[in-house]
C-alpha cells in the first residue's frame, strides 16, 4: 500500500528548528566546496572563461570558471576564493550559483549573454532573528566588456509577471502550482511535496530580463526560510533556477534545476494603464534608508496573540461584541455590506442539521433572536444581523453565549429551497485557543408553510477554485481573494497604486448555494486566528458575511461586506482531481 502524498504537518504547523549559526555553518561547509547538485547536466558555458561583473550599488565580482563546475571568485579586488558552482542556460540567459566556503554567504547570478546585463543576488544565512531564513540583496549590473562602454540599461523590477500562474515540474520531479497575483509576493501550491491541499505565500521579487524572460524569487518566510530563484521564459514555459535552504527536517537543500511547465491563465491587474513598475511595497518606511536585504515581510505567526484556554475564557468574559455599531471596531470591513433585512422578525423556525443538534429560533425583531438546541427548555437571547443576498437567501450570524467553546454561527438559509448551511465557528482549538476552528453543518429549514427536501442538500463545490475576486470593503480597504485550491484561499492586499502587495493564505472551503451564489469560509490559522465567512454573489458582485475573532480585546462577531470585481480564473481544477 503506497503512502499518501500528505505531510505529517502542514507548513504553517511545523515548529522549525531554531538553527544556530554554528549548525548552519557546519551544514554549509561541504556543500560550499562541492557546489549545488543538479539532475540536469550542468552547463559548461563559462568553462575556461573569466567574467568581471560590475554592479551599480554592490560588489564587483571577478569570476574565473574552470572545468568540473569549479570557479574562482574575487570580490571587490580581494583574495581569490575557490568554490563549487552550478550553471544552467535558457536561450541566451545563464543562471549560476555558488556559496563562498568558510562563510554563510553565496551568490545567484543571472547573465543575459545577448545584452551582457547581469543581476546578482547575494544570499546569506543568519541575517534575521531566525538564522535559517535566507536573506537576499539584489544588485543590477553588467558583464564588463574590454574596450566597451558599460550598457546604459539594466534589468528592472516589474509588474509584468503580476497576475500570471504556472504549473511547474522540475527535473527532480518536484511539481508546483505557482501564482503571481501580487508584484511583491507569490502564492505556491506544493503538489508533489505536500499533496496540494493548501497554498502558501512568500515575499517575492520580479525582475524583467526581456519581454519573454523574467527572474522570480521567493523566500519562505514564517516557514522553513528556503529561498527559490529562477529565470522563466513565459512563452516557452521553461525555467532554470536554484533552491537553497533547510527543509522541515533541517536537511540542507542546495541544487540548481531545470523545469518545464504549463500556463494556467492570467488575472487582471489593477494598476493604472502604463504602470509597469515593480517592487510596489517600499523596503523601508518613508524617509528611511533600507538596510541591506530589507523588505516588508508579513509575519502573522510572529505577531499574532497566542492565548491559552484560560486566557480565551477570560477575554470572552471581559468583552463580547456582536455586530458593534457602524463606527465601532471592525466596522470598516462591513462598510459595503449593503442593507440588512428584517424579514426574519416575528418568525420561528428550526434549522435541522444532518450532523449536529437542531437549532430552534424565535426572532423578536431585526436584530434580536432567541435560540435553543432542540430538547432544551430555555431560550437564550442573542443579537444578530441578517442580509438577503439573493431573493429568498438570507445570511445571518449570532454567537452562542454560554457554550464552552464560545461558538458562533454564520448561517445561510435558502427559504426557496428549504436548505441551510452553517459555518459553526469555535475556539479552544489545539494549537492556540484563540485560533478559530470551523465545522460545516448542512441541513434543512423547518417552519410553517415550508416543506424542505428529504435528500437534497447544499454541498461543497470546486466551482470557485481558480477564480480571483477583488473586494472593496471600504475606501482604502481593498483586497483580492485567490481561490487557489479546493481547501485554501489566498488574500492579496493592494497598495496605494493598486498593485498587489502583501499576501497570505489559509484553509478554506466553498459551498454552492445556488448558481452564482457561493458560501465560503477561510481560517486565518497561525495568523490572527480569525474565521471569515462570506456569501459571494456573482450576479451582484457583492459579498456579505460574518467575521468571528477572539483576541486579547475579547470575542467579536462583525459584519463583512464588499463590492467585488472578477479578476480572472486559473485553469487548475485538473490538478486536484483524484485519478484512478
Amino acid at each position: 500500500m503506497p503512502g499518501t502524498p500528505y505531510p505529517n504537518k502542514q507548513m504553517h504547523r511545523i515548529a522549525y528548528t531554531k538553527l544556530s549559526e554554528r549548525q548552519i555553518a557546519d551544514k554549509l561547509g561541504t556543500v560550499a566546496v562541492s557546489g549545488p547538485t543538479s539532475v540536469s547536466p550542468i552547463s559548461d558555458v563559462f568553462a575556461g572563461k573569466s567574467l568581471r561583473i560590475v554592479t551599480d550599488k554592490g560588489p564587483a565580482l571577478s569570476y574565473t570558471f574552470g572545468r568540473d563546475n569549479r570557479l574562482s571568485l574575487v570580490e571587490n579586488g580581494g583574495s581569490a576564493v575557490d568554490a563549487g558552482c552550478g550553471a544552467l542556460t535558457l536561450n541566451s540567459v545563464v543562471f549560476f550559483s555558488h556559496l563562498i566556503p568558510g562563510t554563510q554567504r553565496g551568490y545567484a547570478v543571472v547573465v543575459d549573454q545577448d545584452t551582457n546585463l547581469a543581476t546578482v543576488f547575494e544570499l546569506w544565512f543568519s541575517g534575521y532573528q531566525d538564522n535559517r531564513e535566507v536573506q537576499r540583496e539584489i544588485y543590477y549590473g553588467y558583464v564588463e566588456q574590454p574596450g566597451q562602454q558599460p550598457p546604459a540599461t539594466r534589468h528592472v523590477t516589474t509588474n509584468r509577471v503580476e497576475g500570471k500562474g504556472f504549473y511547474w515540474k522540475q527535473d527532480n520531479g518536484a511539481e508546483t502550482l505557482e501564482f503571481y497575483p501580487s508584484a511583491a509576493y507569490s502564492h505556491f501550491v506544493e503538489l508533489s511535496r505536500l499533496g496540494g491541499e493548501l497554498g502558501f505565500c512568500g515575499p517575492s521579487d520580479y525582475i524583467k530580463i526581456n519581454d519573454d524572460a523574467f527572474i522570480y524569487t521567493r523566500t519562505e518566510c514564517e516557514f522553513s526560510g528556503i529561498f527559490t530563484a529562477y529565470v522563466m521564459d513565459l512563452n516557452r514555459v521553461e525555467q532554470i533556477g536554484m533552491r537553497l535552504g533547510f527543509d522541515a527536517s533541517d536537511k540542507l537543500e542546495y541544487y540548481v534545476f531545470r523545469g518545464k511547465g504549463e500556463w494556467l491563465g492570467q488575472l487582471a491587474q489593477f494598476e493604472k494603464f502604463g504602470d509597469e513598475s515593480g517592487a510596489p511595497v517600499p523596503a523601508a518606511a518613508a524617509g528611511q534608508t533600507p538596510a541591506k536585504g530589507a523588505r516588508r515581510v508579513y509575519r502573522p505567526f510572529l505577531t499574532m496573540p497566542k492565548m491559552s484556554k484560560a486566557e480565551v475564557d477570560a477575554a470572552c468574559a471581559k468583552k463580547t461584541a456582536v455586530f458593534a455599531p457602524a463606527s465601532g471596531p471592525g466596522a470598516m470591513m462591513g462598510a459595503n455590506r449593503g442593507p440588512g433585512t428584517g424579514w426574519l422578525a416575528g418568525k420561528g423556525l428550526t434549522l435541522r442539521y444532518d450532523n449536529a443538534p437542531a437549532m430552534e429560533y424565535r426572532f423578536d425583531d431585526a436584530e434580536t433572536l432567541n435560540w435553543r438546541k432542540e430538547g432544551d427548555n430555555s431560550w437564550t437571547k442573542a443579537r444578530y444581523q441578517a442580509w438577503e443576498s439573493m431573493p429568498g437567501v438570507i445570511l445571518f450570524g449570532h454567537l452562542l453565549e454560554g457554550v464552552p467553546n464560545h461558538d458562533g454561527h454564520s448561517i445561510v438559509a435558502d427559504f426557496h429551497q428549504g436548505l441551510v448551511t452553517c459555518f459553526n465557528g469555535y475556539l479552544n482549538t489545539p494549537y492556540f485557543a484563540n485560533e478559530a476552528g470551523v465545522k460545516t453543518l448542512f441541513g434543512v429549514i423547518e417552519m410553517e408553510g415550508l416543506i424542505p427536501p428529504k435528500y437534497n442538500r447544499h454541498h461543497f463545490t470546486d466551482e470557485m477554485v481558480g477564480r480571483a475576486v477583488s473586494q472593496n470593503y471600504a475606501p482604502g480597504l481593498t483586497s483580492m481573494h485567490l481561490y487557489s485550491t479546493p481547501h485554501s484561499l489566498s488574500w492579496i492586499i493592494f497598495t496605494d497604486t493598486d498593485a498587489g502587495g502583501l499576501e497570505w493564505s489559509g484553509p478554506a472551503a466553498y459551498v454552492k448555494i445556488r448558481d452564482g451564489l457561493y458560501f465560503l469560509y477561510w481560517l486565518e490559522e497561525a495568523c490572527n486566528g480569525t474565521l471569515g465567512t462570506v456569501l459571494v454573489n456573482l450576479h451582484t458582485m457583492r459579498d456579505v458575511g460574518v467575521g468571528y475573532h477572539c483576541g486579547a480585546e475579547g470575542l467579536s462577531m462583525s459584519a463583512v461586506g464588499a463590492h467585488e470585481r472578477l479578476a480572472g480564473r486559473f485553469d487548475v481544477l485538473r490538478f486536484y482531481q483524484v485519478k484512478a
Partner: protein
Amino acid sequence: MTTDSTSTRRSFLKGGAVLAAPLAAALPAAVMADEGLKARLARMEDEAAIRELHQTWLRQINTGASDATTSLYTRPEGAMFNQAVRGIATDHSGQPDAIELAADGNSAAGRFDCAVETAAEIAQDCTVAQMARAQGGGFVRRTERRVLKIEYAKVAGVWVIEKVEFALA
C-alpha cells in the same frame, strides 16, 4: 467655485483694510496720500511677515513636518487642527488669496482657496487593515476643495497663527 462661496468671501472681507494678492501691487496715489508713510510701511511689513509665516506653515505641512508647526502658533494645541492633513495646494481656479489686517494692526485674517489632501488612518482591527499598514498604507486618502481660513495674532512683535479652519468651498 460657486457663487455662494464668492459672496461669502465678500462678506468675509467687509470692514478693515484689504490687502489682496498680488500684494505687491502699488496702491493708488490718492490712498498713499491719505495715509502716512509710516503706517503704510508698517502694513506692508505686517503683510510680508504674515505671508512668510503662511509659506513656512504650508511648507511644513506639505513636507510632513506638521509637528514643527507648533512654534508658529500662539498655543501649541492650536497646531492640532487636523492631523489627517497631508498636503495643501493652492486652488488656482479659486479666488485670489486675501489677508485682512485689523485696524489696530495686532490681528489679521487670511483666506485661501485650496485643495486639501487628507489621509485618515484606518483602524487596525482587522487583518486587511493590518496588512495594508504593514506595507506602508492603511489610510483613506482624499483631496477636496476647501477654503482655508486662518486667524493671525501679533505677539511681542511677531506674527503667529491663532486658529486654522478648513471651510467648505
